[in-house]
């Protein structure tokens, strides 16, 4: 039985309040006219003259090479309007990145939960309640994202998805070909469908899991098993749609068949990492004594293995596009390599090299503080990953990491902590009673 500690509750509230203020500041300080936008660009360039000069040079160089074909490079008015919309996108993008990042933690955990049920894993049932706690964030996270997309698509409050702009659509022949898929009503219906489906599964299994505690037979358990199988089937298809809609759609001229699976790898590894971190926290409070270091070891192995899996997919996608270098595909990585080098390649260190070296050793994987330390790095790395899915497409070279980004993270971090631990505190117990595999799990030693 867990009681939500006051300290943690207050911390989460402070994070949320600070976050809201910062998010508000981000929106207020975004330019509303072209003059303001120019002033912002000028002041940031003056600010860090050295670093940005260089970036500007390479940007100019890039533009020179494409200048012949790119008629609008000369068109100053259009360029200024473009700058304005990019700067206006920044607080929205910062919001989306953080909102999705924390949402994907709970989705990743939910998928892991379903996989454990379907695989009839004998080691993990003692962790099911913790997983249910982490997935509690699914519903608020989904609502926030859906509201965000209604504001974006339905009310045109930002310019993140250029295909949602009817003027651009009218001028762009390639996008017109895709309008059967890329249109606002269909987009909103799709998002509602998969968000609703995932939330429904979560609601259903948690309910059955509570019923199983009191049941005389294994009927609820069997229902969980069946629904998990169908959820995984549904998820695998809808996750692809989500990735195409929300992230590939940010750059609607670009396409990559691997993209959806790559996004999934990020979601999955982050979800498992959060489960392990919440576990270590609860263990440190002495609340989950039935969980031993073998369970932690297994989670550590998943973080290790899935980090490598993520790197494999990252490499697969990047290398194939780099190798063939077909212009319409490599344009996507041009922006990322030129203007986001530190994020784009830096995340490889955090998401691959670091967990690879840290979690290789068996003894290390069994230490709580080691899991926390690696977990924090892995989560930062995957935040960077989400960052580079969104920012280069919406804000481009005018990005920076400041108040809007940090505040969004703080707000959602606070909300995530609050929702998760609130849900864990409301659970009747932290150990399932009549799961048929619970005994195996309690005696698990590796």
């Amino acid at each position, binding site marked *: 039985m867990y009681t939500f500690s006051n300290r943690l509750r207050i911390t989460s509230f402070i994070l949320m309040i600070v976050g809201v203020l910062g998010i508000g500041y981000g929106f207020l300080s975004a330019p509303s006219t072209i003059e303001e936008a120019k002033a912002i660009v000028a002041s940031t360039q003056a600010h860090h003259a050295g670093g940005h000069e260089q970036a500007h040079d390479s940007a100019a160089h890039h533009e020179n090479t494409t200048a012949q074909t790119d008629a609008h490079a000369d068109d100053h008015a259009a360029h200024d309007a473009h700058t304005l919309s990019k700067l206006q996108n920044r607080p929205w993008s910062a919001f989306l990145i953080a909102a999705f990042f924390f949402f994907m933690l709970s989705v990743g955990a939910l998928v892991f939960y379903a996989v454990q049920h379907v695989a009839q894993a004998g080691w993990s049932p003692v962790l099911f309640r913790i997983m249910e706690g982490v997935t509690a964030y699914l519903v608020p996270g989904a609502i926030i994202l859906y509201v965000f997309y209604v504001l974006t698509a339905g009310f045109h409050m930002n310019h993140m998805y250029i295909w949602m702009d009817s003027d651009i659509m009218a001028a762009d022949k390639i996008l017109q070909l895709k309008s059967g898929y890329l249109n606002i009503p269909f987009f909103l219906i799709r998002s509602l469908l998969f968000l609703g489906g995932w939330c429904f599964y979560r609601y259903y299994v948690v309910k059955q899991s509570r019923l199983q505690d009191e049941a005389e037979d294994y009927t609820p358990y069997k229902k969980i098993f069946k629904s998990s199988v169908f959820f995984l089937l549904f998820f695998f*298809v809808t996750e692809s749609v989500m990735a195409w809609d929300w992230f590939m759609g940010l750059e609607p001229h670009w396409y990559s068949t691997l993209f959806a699976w790559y996004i999934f790898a990020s979601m999955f590894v982050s979800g498992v990492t959060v489960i392990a971190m919440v576990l270590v926290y609860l263990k440190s409070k002495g609340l989950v004594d039935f969980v031993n270091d073998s369970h932690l070891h297994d989670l550590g192995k998943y973080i290790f293995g899935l980090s490598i899996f993520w790197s*494999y997919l990252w490499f697969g996608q990047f290398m194939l596009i780099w190798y063939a270098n077909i212009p319409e595909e490599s344009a996507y990585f041009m922006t990322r390599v030129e203007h986001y080098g530190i994020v784009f390649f830096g995340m490889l260190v955090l998401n691959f090299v670091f967990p690879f070296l840290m979690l290789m050793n068996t003894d290390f994987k069994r230490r709580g503080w080691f899991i926390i330390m690696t977990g924090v790095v892995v989560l930062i790395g995957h935040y960077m990953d989400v960052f580079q899915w969104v920012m280069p497409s919406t804000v481009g070279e005018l990005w920076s990491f400041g108040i809007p980004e940090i505040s969004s993270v703080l707000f959602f971090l606070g909300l995530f902590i609050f929702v998760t631990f609130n849900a864990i505190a409301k659970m009747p117990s932290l150990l399932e009673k009549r799961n048929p595999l619970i005994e195996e799990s309690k005696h698990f030693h590796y």
Partner: protein
Amino acid sequence: MASHYEAPIREPLVTGEKSYHDVTVDIAAPVEGRANKLWWIAFSIALVAFLWGIGCIIYTVSTGIGVWGLNKTIGWAWDITNFVWWVGIGHAGTLISAVLLLFRQKWRMAVNRSAEAMTIFSVVQAGLFPIIHMGRPWLAYWVLPIPNQFGSLWVNFNSPLLWDVFAISTYLSVSLVFWWTGLLPDFAMLRDRAVKPFQKKIYSLLSFGWTGRAKDWQRFEEVSLVLAGLATPLVLSVHTIVSFDFATSVVAGWHSTIYPPYFVAGAIFSGFAMVLTLLIIMRKVSNLEAYITRVHIEYMNKVILLTGGVVSVAYITEFFIAWYSGTNYEDYTYLSIGAATGPYWWAFWALIICNFIVPQTLWVKKLRRNFTWSFIVSIIINIGMWFERFDIIVINLSKGHLPSSWSMFSPTFVDVGIYLGTIGFFFVLFLLYARTFPVIAQAEIKTILKSSGERYKRMRDVEGKSIAGAAADPRTSNYSGTNTNSSDQATK
């Protein structure tokens, strides 16, 4: 793992009243007995096919690649189709022995030995094609980066065909070592049982003096785990590299980033199908029904269902992105309306029916637990996965960027002959293996006998008795173990 406790809901993995000794006897029987007529018939057919294949290979190499059905547009067809097909089949072996070991799947123990043998024999078949499809195979050693008298003329490390060389040769070597390590205790068992001096000598050599000391076992386990940890990324990367042969190109339909994981999933899909094909027969002819049970078949069918699902989602993705890309070159790729209605419509639909529609029947529990149906489905998948590779290679090449180069492909008898020859060679090796090697890892089966054997599960779960000493052989032990409870003995 340490305790013998297992949840009652788990199905037994060894059926019947087997003791440790029974396991040994059952597994050694095919090796110690004599081949029957059926074996000789099968072996002769396989050998004839193999010899015919050798004839076709010699004819190709001595006459020229022109004896195949290739043309200037379609420079890869049956050769690389068969190569990818065989490599794919080989992947299930490593998956079963390595990935399922990492996931602590006890059911793998009855199937891993044969699956690994299948890996090695099919990688050998696959390895033939990169050599024989060369125009000048006698210069094949030029692919190796060895110092030479051409001013140290080197290979270009940018080609995925060169990566293939490294991938396949590493894969074969590691699989072989992994397989052989696991065989040591089992060869030792055959050595200890052998009564004829010649057999004794052979199995003594093969078992490397294994004596089964505690320290040996400890290291054995560690090595297995490390090798499994290495073989898992290896198996993923090998088929990934095979997929790079296509995906790094700029051919429409080939250049697709999903190829690496999708090829791997397809490899597991087809590999498991082949394992099923072989084991459903083997459990019958070698009397191993107690070890390769219905539940093993069901689990393998579930893996097929899973990987078939992954492959299907990849098909949908390919189809969708081909449309979404807005590139009209994608109109003729292997998963497009153009392919479904074009001259290769039959190959397209063979792929859809064999890989997508038929395996979906495995969702029905009755069907995936049915030996006959599983066997039929496994054959259909093998055919379907051959068509997948054929479609990827030939359909995508047949209608490229330039309509004036559009072409069709039809194989000659040499193309077909070599393919049949590799199937023959595969079965020659596999049939020899089945008569000389312990086809089930008896040492491993013995580790799960008490936790997952039907008899012991019943004693523990239903009758509530202790299983201590229950597997002792009454002829060698005076412990009457069976059906006794330690507390009973104390009261006696």
